[in-house]
């Protein structure tokens, strides 16, 4: 029989206001095994933990039930407290009487009754708890970064500087990401390339960093500290060792009709290409869809002009298998598809562009060489209209329910830059709210209004109507003046909502990392663990976790790096002891469990058993507890009940069921 102590937390008034905590403690004493019960204001405080520890010593407790907030909140706290008092940490169970009781019920009597039942269930479970000991697993001291944008680069640099090996896997031919497409950055207006390129170079030159560009993660297995990852290195058709990056092949390539991804499709590139001049590595790839040689078998000009003999049409995709201790996701974002917002005429007029396209137009390396001009006729615009919140803050299925966060600031930046360089251009911004929380952000926006004379109108645009003369008629409202506005513009810029890179869903599935309804990766705790995924060993960097600007991304990238370093610095990890175990005398050796195990943790061995005097060799399931993650799929698949899960055993769960239904 256990000697159980029950500790009921008031959580200030969070619990005590709706649950009669002393009554719960009183009722606890009537439960089998309970030898001690008390309530206290804050069980998680030092004083509260001391009470638990004192009781363990004084009453020789063998099990603890804490009636408090969710186990997701403080289970670890109380387990550690018990451990310090010499009790096995897995002898602690939590009855969640806050999130599942006091916070959702108003009636005191009802809530108290429920709290008592939840306490009973936890006591019933603890009565069947057994001390568990975590196993150990090794840590591979290498990190994988998925995504080579500013987030991935920064995380990689920070981890590498701490002395650990880092591999970056980037899908496109070059690292750099979205930031490489930007012209200037707010709120300081430095040139994006000027601050990014040195980091790209640093990453590529770092002896601890290996970069796989034009590559994708294909398969992930294993677990924290010991992931095995297959990386597909797509055929570049260019030998990276031989290529000197002279660029002659791109110049001579006769196929120049492929839309440039880097310039958002605003102009074309050759079939053999590097996405941009500062690309790292500075080695082109052949776009096999666009290449004449690949399409017709004839051509081969690039091969002829390449003095280094680097062109290799025969190159094949290569799979590299590597082990990692930690994985950082830094897959970034893209702008949403605007098909559902036809009222803004994006598909009808070349002069309606997204803000990211405007970045390319404003950039000296862009399609217009940095001249602000209409993409339809090359004329300089006189009237420019910016429309905010296109697809952001939408509760219908056309857009995204969240604020994309960066648009207010980049629009202020664009408006300011245009007014600065082309003072005769009028700039009007239609906004719903201007959101500028951030250091020097509101000052920046005010400068756009006060110094640069940007015309901000509070009100959304309803429709953009292309006119026969090429102008764009913008119909919007001015809510402050209570007017409907009709305005002729030469160019319209849409502050298009951003969304997580569509690949992230596939990657999250491979990593078994959870994802929210908007495809942003979920953090382990919204406030306290913002750069970790709930899946151990997976860390989040940049916009894949939620909308962010560059300084925030860099800050989070550093934080993710620290978390990854904290993991890599360990030689051994303690594994979750709540793993499956097979009872040798009950096991049929039928392989049913093996078929449902997602981790390949179950194997079969011929073992001699002594079944009540009968000695025989049987085929038995054996669980590798380092691989087992404790899902329990096998326990239900097992027909004989031989397979059971420690910490969530059949008898424990049934005891809870019985206690609740009593």
């Amino acid at each position, binding site marked *: 029989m256990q000697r159980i102590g029950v500790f009921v937390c008031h959580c200030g008034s969070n619990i005590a206001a709706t649950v009669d905590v002393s009554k719960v403690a009183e009722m606890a004493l009537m439960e089998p095994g309970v030898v001690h019960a008390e309530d206290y204001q804050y069980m998680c405080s030092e004083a509260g933990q001391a009470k638990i520890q004192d009781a363990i010593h004084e009453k020789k407790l063998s099990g603890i039930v804490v009636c408090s907030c969710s186990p997701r909140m403080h289970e670890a706290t109380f387990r550690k407290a018990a451990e310090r008092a010499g009790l096995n940490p897995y002898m602690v169970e939590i009855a969640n009487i806050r999130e599942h009781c006091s916070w959702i019920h108003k009636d005191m009597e009802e809530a108290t009754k429920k709290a008592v039942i939840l306490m009973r269930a936890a006591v019933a479970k603890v009565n069947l708890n057994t001390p568990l000991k975590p196993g150990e697993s090794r840590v591979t001291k290498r990190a994988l970064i998925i995504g080579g944008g500013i987030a991935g680069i920064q995380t990689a640099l920070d981890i590498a500087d701490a002395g650990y090996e880092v591999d970056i896997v980037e899908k496109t031919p070059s690292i750099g990401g979205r930031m490489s497409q930007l012209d200037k950055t707010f709120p300081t207006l430095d040139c994006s390339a000027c601050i990014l390129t040195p980091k790209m170079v640093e990453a590529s030159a770092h002896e601890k960093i290996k970069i796989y560009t034009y590559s994708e993660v294909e398969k992930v297995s294993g677990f924290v500290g010991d992931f095995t990852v297959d990386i597909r290195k797509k055929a570049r058709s260019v030998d990276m060792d031989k290529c000197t990056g002279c660029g002659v092949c791109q110049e001579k390539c006769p196929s120049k009709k492929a839309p440039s991804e880097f310039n958002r499709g605003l102009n074309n590139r050759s079939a053999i290409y590097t996405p941009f001049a500062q690309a790292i590595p500075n080695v082109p790839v052949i776009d096999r869809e666009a290449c004449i040689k690949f399409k017709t078998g004839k051509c081969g000009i690039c091969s002829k002009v390449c003095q280094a003999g680097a062109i290799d049409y025969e190159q094949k995709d290569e799979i590299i298998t590597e082990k990692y201790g930690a994985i950082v996701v830094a897959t970034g974002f893209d702008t949403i598809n605007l098909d559902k917002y036809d009222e803004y005429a994006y598909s009808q007029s070349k002069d309606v562009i997204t803000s990211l396209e405007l970045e390319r137009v404003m950039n000296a390396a862009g399609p217009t060489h940095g001249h602000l001009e209409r993409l339809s006729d090359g004329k300089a615009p006189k009237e420019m209209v910016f429309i905010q919140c296109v697809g952001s803050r939408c*509760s219908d299925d*056309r857009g995204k329910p969240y604020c994309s966060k960066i648009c207010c600031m980049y629009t202020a930046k664009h408006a300011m830059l245009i007014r600065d360089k082309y003072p005769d251009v009028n700039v009007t911004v239609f906004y719903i709210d201007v959101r500028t929380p951030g250091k020097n952000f509101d000052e920046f926006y005010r400068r756009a209004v006060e110094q640069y004379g940007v015309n901000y109108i509070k*009100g959304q645009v*309803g429709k953009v109507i292309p006119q026969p003369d090429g102008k764009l008629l913008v*119909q*919007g*409202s001015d*809510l402050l003046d209570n007017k*409907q506005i009709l305005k002729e513009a030469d160019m319209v810029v849409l502050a298009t909502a951003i969304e997580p890179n569509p690949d992230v869903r596939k990657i999250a599935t491979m990593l078994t990392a959870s994802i929210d309804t908007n495809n942003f990766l979920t953090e382990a705790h919204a406030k306290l663990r913002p750069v970790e995924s709930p899946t151990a060993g997976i860390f989040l960097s940049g916009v894949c976790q939620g909308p962010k600007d560059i300084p925030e991304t860099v800050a989070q990238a550093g934080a993710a790096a620290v978390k990854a370093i904290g993991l890599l610095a360990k030689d051994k990890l303690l594994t979750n002891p709540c793993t499956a175990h097979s009872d040798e005398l009950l096991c049929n050796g039928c392989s049913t469990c093996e078929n449902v195990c997602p981790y390949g943790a179950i194997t079969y061995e011929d073992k001699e058993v002594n079944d009540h005097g009968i000695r025989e060799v049987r085929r038995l399931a054996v669980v590798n507890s380092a691989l087992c993650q404790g899902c329990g799929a096998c326990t239900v698949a097992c027909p004989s009940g031989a397979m059971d899960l420690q910490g969530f055993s059949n008898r424990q769960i049934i005891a809870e069921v019985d206690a609740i239904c009593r």
Partner: protein
Amino acid sequence: MSEKKKQAELIEEISGVNPLKCMKCGKCSATCPSYNEMDIKPHQFVSYVINEDVESLVNSESLWKCLSCFACVERCPRDVKPGKLIDAARQMVVRQRGQAYLSPDEIPELLDPELPQQLLVSAFRRYRR
């Protein structure tokens, strides 16, 4: 419950609109073809319902100026549908006059030159699908 509150709730019920979802972006007014002829503008409809001042809405010019083109309904990013609110206010007026509950089969017979055009348009829209 006060009469005013009842009216406001009736509007919400008929329209199926939750006016609290409005984020006051003004896209409805931006898009409205009858904007200039209206005394209460589409983006203001919601506040009249929230403030339980259905009476002003019912007595407004806008009530019969709205063409029921539903551009505002189509484009509202928050699913608030100001056009449905004003449509509901019209319904209320008609119901009070005792011409409640149109069924699609009845419409042809009711084609009366006296009947406001807006009602017809919105009725056709409502029963289109």
